[in-house]
């Protein structure tokens, strides 16, 4: 089946305005007859819940954590992009759009990416009005910094805690709507299934994580804003509860999963150190504004970094990509780092790390300036590694960070299931094969504050308020099935813990479907994943019961989903016989070792339909049509 992204006609710059005008509307008095479920309270879910309630809809919002304020978005450090052009350095909506689409290696939908750039400025206005304390210069105006893949300074930030401040802004608006009775908040709930009635999304089944009880919730539309699946690699910069579960349940109910193999490995994370390790900590991309990345020129050089003279250092990003230097986009920087380490030039105990050095900038600007800019990151590093980065260069290595793939959505952010909308990292639409830094926060808030409030109206206006209640048999069926899955997990009583199996899955994915992929490895991965899935079904052990708080049981359900989902990711990676952005197939590279796209055969979104347990998924394609930009070879040299 060929998918239709429902991109409106007209000039690129006029599409959104025109579409907003053409969308059907729900009149203000009727809005209160509609109920909307929002799953997730990150930037996408928090902002959409608030904005939809402000319009008058009745919203029910769900999250896993004990409070909506703790969604994973809270951890974003570096910043959020917008095309304000306050520094007068040549930015514009067009440039932000172009950088984003080029950064994504021309694998995103042009019209969506353009709209993202268009609403970016409203986001900054909105956040300032909410009381988000962005960094300011001495004159009291907003300050900007630079991020990878851009030659202008367009990133707004609140120290190293931008995600926290933006999320607390959304959370405050959400709290206001909770107090007004327009949002009913359900924390510590995990969505275990999506409920369809006559092919339309009409509700969800959740588990109360404290009592273990199932609950059914009905609505006129369901919005998923459940984040990304970076934890498929086990070790990642994501919070421990990040999972693919909600999206995967929707997939099993017929929603298409788009470009699952597009994952982002972030170049600057604190390297792996031991077996017990539970997560990897990001060192914000903003550090690459001032830090210089290098390795010793000679493989196996064991001297301490400060003892290695300038002439024996290789600042490899500056050497390979002179025009972007240390600010080359993430996929490029990560791959380059891996290459250096594979060539034996890596440093640290494992040889899988490179230096990020601040010596020059400290000499230039002084310690005070640097500590004001990055103090909290430096402290974080020192605390984890027990070395002082003001004196000794940091050691960094790439880690799983973000997932560009996600549920397929059209221009209205609706999936192929009527009434199921998907926002934020959970959808696939705006970043193509690689996301630029500071663009995920922008997308989450764009989707939530400025897009869904319009597009959901267009859907609801054509649908009478739902008569479906939670005693509809479809809810009962979904509950039964979820309960069975849980009972099964508890009954296996094998010999391996959930984390232990998850860690092994992560190693498989990292090795064969990480920064570089090839056919042989991917085929091997499929076999290994299938074996591991069997191992899990026979030999996992889940302690405790299903009638009180049981984190191991929650994790078991999520890992079971990852074990199935991983195969889909690998299948997608196998099918995409080209290199683009974060998807680097070793068979398809230029002589200089850069990604080689195949626009002839792969200029499309790969959207997969569930084919049944153990069966191959069904491939659908949305051709990507570029009306306004020319497809060029991405070059950062």
């Amino acid at each position, binding site marked *: 089946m060929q998918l239709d992204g429902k991109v409106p006609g007209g000039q690129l710059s006029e599409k959104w305005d025109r579409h907003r005008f053409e969308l059907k509307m729900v009149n203000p008095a009727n809005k209160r007859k509609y109920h909307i479920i929002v799953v997730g309270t990150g930037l996408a879910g928090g*902002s959409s819940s*608030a*904005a939809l309630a402000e319009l008058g809809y009745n919203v029910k919002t769900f999250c896993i*954590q*004990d*409070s*909506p*304020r*703790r969604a*994973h978005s*809270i*951890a974003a450090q570096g910043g959020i992009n917008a095309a*304000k052009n306050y520094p007068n350095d040549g930015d514009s909506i067009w440039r932000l759009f172009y950088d984003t689409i080029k950064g994504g290696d021309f694998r995103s939908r042009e019209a969506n990416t353009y709209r993202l750039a268009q609403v970016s400025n*409203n986001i900054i*206005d*909105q956040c300032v*009005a*909410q*009381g988000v*304390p962005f960094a*300011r*210069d*001495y*004159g*009291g*105006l907003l300050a900007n910094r630079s991020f990878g893949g851009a030659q202008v300074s367009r990133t707004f930030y609140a*120290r190293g*805690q931008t995600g*926290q*401040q933006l999320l607390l802004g959304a*959370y*405050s*608006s959400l*709290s206001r709507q*909770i*107090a007004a009775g327009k949002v009913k*908040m359900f*924390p510590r709930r995990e969505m275990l299934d999506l409920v369809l009635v006559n092919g339309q999304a009409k509700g969800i089944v959740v588990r109360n994580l404290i009592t273990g009880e199932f609950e059914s919730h009905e609505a006129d539309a369901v919005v998923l804003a459940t984040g990304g699946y970076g934890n498929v690699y086990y070790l990642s910069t994501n*919070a*421990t509860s990040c999972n693919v579960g909600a999206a995967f349940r929707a997939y099993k109910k017929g929603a298409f999963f788009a470009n699952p193999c597009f994952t982002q490995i972030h170049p600057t994370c604190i390297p792996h*150190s031991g077996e*017990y*390790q*539970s*997560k990897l900590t990001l060192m914000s991309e903003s550090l690459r504004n001032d830090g210089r990345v290098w390795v010793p020129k000679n493989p196996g050089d064991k001297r301490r970094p400060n003892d290695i003279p300038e002439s024996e250092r290789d600042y490899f990003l500056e050497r390979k990509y002179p025009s972007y230097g240390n600010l080359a986009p993430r996929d490029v920087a990560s791959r380059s780092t891996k290459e250096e380490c594979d060539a034996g030039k890596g440093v*640290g105990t494992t040889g899988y790390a490179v230096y990020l050095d601040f010596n020059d900038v400290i000499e230039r600007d002084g310690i005070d300036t640097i500590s004001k800019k990055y103090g909290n990151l430096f402290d974080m590093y020192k605390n*984890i590694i*027990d*070395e002082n980065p003001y004196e000794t260069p940091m050691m960094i290595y790439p880690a799983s960070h973000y997932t560009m793939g996600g549920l397929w959505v059209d221009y209205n952010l609706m999936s192929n299931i009527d009434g199921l909308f998907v926002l934020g990292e959970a959808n696939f639409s705006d970043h193509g094969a690689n996301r630029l830094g500071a663009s995920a926060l922008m997308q989450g808030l764009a989707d939530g504050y*400025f897009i869904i*409030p319009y597009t959901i109206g267009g859907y609801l206006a054509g649908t009478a308020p739902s008569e479906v209640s939670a005693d509809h048999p479809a809810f009962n069926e979904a509950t039964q099935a979820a309960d069975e899955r849980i009972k099964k997990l508890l009954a296996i009583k094998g010999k391996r*813990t959930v984390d*232990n199996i998850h860690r092994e899955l992560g190693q498989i994915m990292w090795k064969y479907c990480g920064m570089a992929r090839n056919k042989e490895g991917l085929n091997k991965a499929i076999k290994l994943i299938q074996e591991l899935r069997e191992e899990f079904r026979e030999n996992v*052990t889940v*302690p*405790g019961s299903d009638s*009180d*708080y*049981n984190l*191991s049981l929650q994790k078991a359900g999520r890992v079971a989903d990852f074990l199935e989902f991983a195969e889909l990711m690998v299948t997608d990676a196998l099918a995409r016989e080209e290199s683009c952005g974060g998807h680097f197939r070793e068979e398809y590279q230029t002589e200089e070792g850069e990604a080689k796209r195949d626009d002839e055969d792969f200029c499309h979104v790969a959207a997969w339909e569930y084919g049944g347990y153990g069966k191959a998924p069904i491939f659908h394609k949305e051709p990507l049509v570029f009306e306004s930009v020319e497809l060029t070879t991405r070059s950062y040299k």
Partner: protein
Amino acid sequence: MKQGINTINITLKVWRQKGHKDKGRFETIPVRDVETHMSFLEMLDVVNERLTLEGKEPIEFDNDCREGICGMCGAVVNGIAHGPEKGMTLCQLHMRKFSDGDTIAVEPWRARAFKVVKDLIVDRSSLDKIIQAGGFISMIAGGAPDANAIPIPQEIAEKAMDAAACIGCGACVAACPNASAMLFVGAKISQLALLPQGKPEAAKRALSMLREMDELGFGNCSNETECEAVCPKEISIANIALFNREFLKAGFGSSEK
């Protein structure tokens, strides 16, 4: 990474409680060969793996980001909320701060307004309720003026950011002899009162948040300063003074009662 792996042996005395109706008790668990590079939570992970394989129930504790920002984790370690290191959450605490042979007591936050859910997990929804009572600026998506329309002196923006850094973990409540949430409330009120956008509602906000705090069973502030000492974000009690000012204004200066 410093070369070499150091390990220590410790004894955990950890609080086990099935639910809020259960009485709860300390359980003693000897733990051998703890690598000092581990974080405190990774040490608990290792203990939990072992308990699981022995067929026992693991120790339940809240955590998510594991980098000190989500506010999900927290326990009282050797009598101190979030443990012995200043300005740090429990997930950022590393085992290198402990010595071989140490006995480490771990208990949940204890406060009237926080019920124990299980083991080290408590119910902090009362903090959300305080925010719902007024910890926001009343505005809706779409109506904002240009972000640079109102310049805000850098010093003020920085002060607001200091207060806004609160992660809502509840350590301040756990540490306070009166189980007051005054630092939490004060931080939010200061952040918003400092910014021009938050000024119009400042007085009303202070009054209504404080009222909610009382109703939820939090105690009063008697300047014990224990909260500031344990705050992982080192939020200053100066925020409480600012709060009091807002509160006084609200009490005497406005029609809001």
